[in-house]
């Protein structure tokens, strides 16, 4: 394991991206992306389809290596934070083993993260996503919203310092969505940093700060109120449109 003091070397920012570039062949997915996420805040990554949200999150999760710029995660290289088990990544599509039960899936991810009291944590995570009664169900037999919830549960087991949630509430019903956000808020209050991508403006307004990205670059960064004030529009949605046009 890692020495405790190494883990505690924490900069003010949980994620610090400066001029991050990533291209896939001819497509420039990230063109010098700058953003900084403070420890313990909920940061909303907002942007249209193909703007580079998932690409950026994958860079933070150590799955993609940026070609340019600087990216620090929890005070070090992304892969170091991931290897230390300090990052939880919920992929955009619920990536689970369909032939395994909910319990078996969670037990597997708990083992990979070296979770000590797996039984308790699994129950706790399932209670959070309100699926305790489906613990024995085979994942293939769940509805797609339920799978999304199991996918979130799998991300919470090891209590990561940094949670990367790529559109976590897509396909989740409104009531549960409320509960999710209440839970995110609780996590943030206990010191967890959350990076949440979304298209939904109503969700965006629940974030501490927002980054509006388009075509792989940050258009504007700030709280929802700041962004609305800067654009001089009545609400966030029109602020986003106005800011996107201003560029």
């Amino acid at each position, binding site marked *: 394991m890692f020495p405790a003091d190494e883990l505690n070397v924490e900069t003010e920012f949980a994620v610090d991206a400066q001029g991050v570039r990533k291209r896939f062949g001819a497509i420039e997915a990230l063109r010098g992306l700058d953003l900084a996420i403070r420890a313990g805040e909920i940061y909303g990554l907002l942007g249209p389809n193909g703007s580079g949200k998932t690409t950026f999150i994958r860079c933070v999760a150590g799955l993609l290596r940026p070609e340019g710029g600087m990216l620090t995660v929890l005070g070090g290289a992304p892969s170091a934070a991931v290897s230390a088990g300090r*990052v939880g990544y919920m992929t955009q599509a619920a990536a689970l083993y369909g032939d395994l039960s909910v319990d078996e899936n969670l037990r597997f991810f708990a083992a990979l*993260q070296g979770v000590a009291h797996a039984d308790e944590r699994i129950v706790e995570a399932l209670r959070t996503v309100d699926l305790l009664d489906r613990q024995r169900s085979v994942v293939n037999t769940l509805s797609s919203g339920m799978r999304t919830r199991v996918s979130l549960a799998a991300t919470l087991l090891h209590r990561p310092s940094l949670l990367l949630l790529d559109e976590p509430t897509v396909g989740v019903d409104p009531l549960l969505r409320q509960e999710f956000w209440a839970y995110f808020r609780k996590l943030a209050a206990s010191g967890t940093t959350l990076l949440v991508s979304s298209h939904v403006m109503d969700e965006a307004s629940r974030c501490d700060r927002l980054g509006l990205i388009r075509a792989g670059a940050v258009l504007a960064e700030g709280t929802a109120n700041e962004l609305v004030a800067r654009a001089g529009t009545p609400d966030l949605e029109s602020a986003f449109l106005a800011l996107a046009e201003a560029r």
Partner: protein
Amino acid sequence: MNGHRVRAVAKRIVLGFRRDRRSLGLLFVAPVVVLSLVGAVWGVATERVPTVVVATDRFNFPAPIVDRFVASSAIHGRRGTFEEGLSQLRDGKVDAVVWLEGTTLHIQIEGADPLESGSIGGAIQKALADTLAGASVLLGGGPAVQVDQLYGGPDYSILDYLAPVLVAFFAFFFIFLLSAVSFLRERTTGTLERLMATPLRRAELVLGYLAGFSFFALLQAIVILLFTVFVLKVHYRGTLATIFIVEAVLVIGAVSLGLLVSAAARNELQAVQFVPIVLLPQVFLSGLLIPVDQLPDYLRPLSAVLPLTYANEALRSVMIKGYELADPLVLRDIGILVVFGLVMAVGAVTSIRREVA
């Protein structure tokens, strides 16, 4: 390297197949079906009793001995002249004509099918041996004909020779296919991406796959061996443990090759297309059907790099000849298989880039 994580991956694979009935069927039922077919086709080949014309005009043995020979249970004996015999042979009404020339017994057969030819020759030799064994008194202690085989024997069928290599072939084929498809699924469903965002290392992932699939390969080997020994009554010698060791090292190569192939394929259909490329050369060049020393020179080097060549040699040595694990030939084959497995495993590890896309 973390044993818990390796074990978790292995367990995940085993659990996954528990509910995947079709793949389990592929793994355990398919070999049994194929072996039954092979058994039905080749298992009784030497038990066929050929019809033989004894050319009495060219068979100057004492009459009682000729009687015994014609009456032997190993053949359907008939009397006739040499000319009659030959014409019946050409018409396909009989399988062989025998006659004596000096002290040499001649057997004339049709010879279009080498498998058939061997079994006819064997049956006639057996008939002759039976006859002479009981007739030495009549002959006044004349020379008895005796045919000894180093391995096997007249009651060995082609199935006995095929069974050992089929064990290896099934293990390689199914485990290769299943590991390629499982890992491809891991890529396409996004679980690989998820795994790579945990502390799991690539080498741990590959080791977990090796352990998980070895479990199935050994179970499969048990099923195949039990079926061939107790149902098909295949003769075999050698210790079970040695057979499993050969099997296990072969499977390391098969799983790793599967992972490598899955890196080159975009979908399951493409992965399946690798099957003939990987398997067909091994069917023809590994000694499975054609002995390696009967291959043309220019094909030998190809045969020498195929893992099944060594698995076949080792398993035949153990199961037919009864060689021990400590035998230099068996050890050499196992060593080569280990090297192949390691090279493939390292290749598999490097093929899983962190950049999953």
